[in-house]
């Protein structure tokens, strides 16, 4: 593969890496698996990159490949994830202003989301990323109406998990 392609890919991914980290954070529970999944998503993005025409936004295209890798292609390592591990995801809080309450809430949310199945996680993720139902339905391959219905069910489910 030529150097120019490599450079444009790595630079674009470096710029948009947050998307991949967020997917990893939803689908994994410790930093080893996080890195492992990040690695696999990067490889899959790179493999698909020559066909990336630029008619879509790089980030939009990334959502699809990243989620597909997390849901379908990635093989979890032998380590099974116990529920007690769920709250061990610790990301260093860099800035002082970063609200503790916000972090607490996000942590709770991650714990709740981790109890959903892989598909529900994907829906919630796209929803939190402010994607339209049209985009959600296209990414997942389901109808728009059903994406909406399912999303409402997931919301109810999350509510129940958060307020037992």
């Amino acid at each position: 593969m030529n150097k120019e392609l490599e450079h444009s890919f790595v630079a674009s991914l470096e710029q948009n890496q947050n998307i991949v980290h967020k997917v990893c954070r939803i689908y994994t529970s410790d930093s080893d698996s996080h890195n492992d999944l990040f690695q696999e998503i990067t490889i899959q993005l790179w493999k698909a990159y020559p066909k990336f025409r630029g008619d879509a936004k790089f980030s939009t295209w990334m959502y699809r490949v990243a989620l597909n890798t997390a849901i379908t292609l990635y093989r979890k390592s032998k380590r099974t994830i116990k529920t007690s591990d769920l709250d061990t995801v610790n990301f260093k809080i860099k800035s002082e202003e970063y609200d503790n309450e916000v972090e607490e809430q996000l942590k709770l949310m991650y714990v709740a989301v981790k109890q959903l199945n892989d598909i529900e996680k994907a829906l919630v993720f796209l929803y939190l990323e402010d994607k339209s139902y049209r985009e959600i339905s296209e990414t997942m391959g389901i109808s728009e109406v059903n994406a909406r219905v399912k999303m409402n069910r997931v919301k109810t489910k999350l509510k129940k998990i958060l307020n037992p």
Partner: protein
Amino acid sequence: MDELELLKKNWKKQEDVLPKLTYQQIYQMILKKSSSIVRWIFIISILEFLLWASLDVVFRLNGMHAKLQKGSIESFGTITTVVYYSILIYFIVRFYLNYKKIETTDSAKVLMNNILKTRKTVRHYIWVNIGFFAFIMMATVGYIIFFTDEFQSQALGNQPPVWLIVVSTLLITLVFVVLIALFYRVIYGIFTRRLQRNYKALEKIDL
């Protein structure tokens, strides 16, 4: 406010605490090899094709083939060989075409469906093979019992009853088939369990 809405508001704030990889770290990553299930499925499928294709060679080496070549059904062996390799080529072509269709840029559902289809091709190939070998086994035993001189000319008291041979052949074939089926259930169970589960979950949404 809805919990999820509240979280959506906070969701964006987390960007500052996410890990940041450098250009160099990402560059190192693209040099590594994938360990995705698609890669594994590809490797295993190729091994299966090789394994089953080599069974024909084993058949020839252990003399089964020679027995068939003797006597009145010389052409039987030739025909089975031709049929056998035609099946192999047909399935390899189908497998390759299905495999080429797997694209991570498709929707989740299409991607999963394409992977499962690729797997299905190999599964069909294995079942056709099992059927084929079971048939050859029966045909060979049948031929030895009813048409070979050595069996016919033996004194009546020395030869085991025909039903015993037929039943034991059937039993051996059955055990063979069950063992292979079990083996595949375990191997592919490991690889496709999560995929099957997610595909079902996706399908259920659209029901």
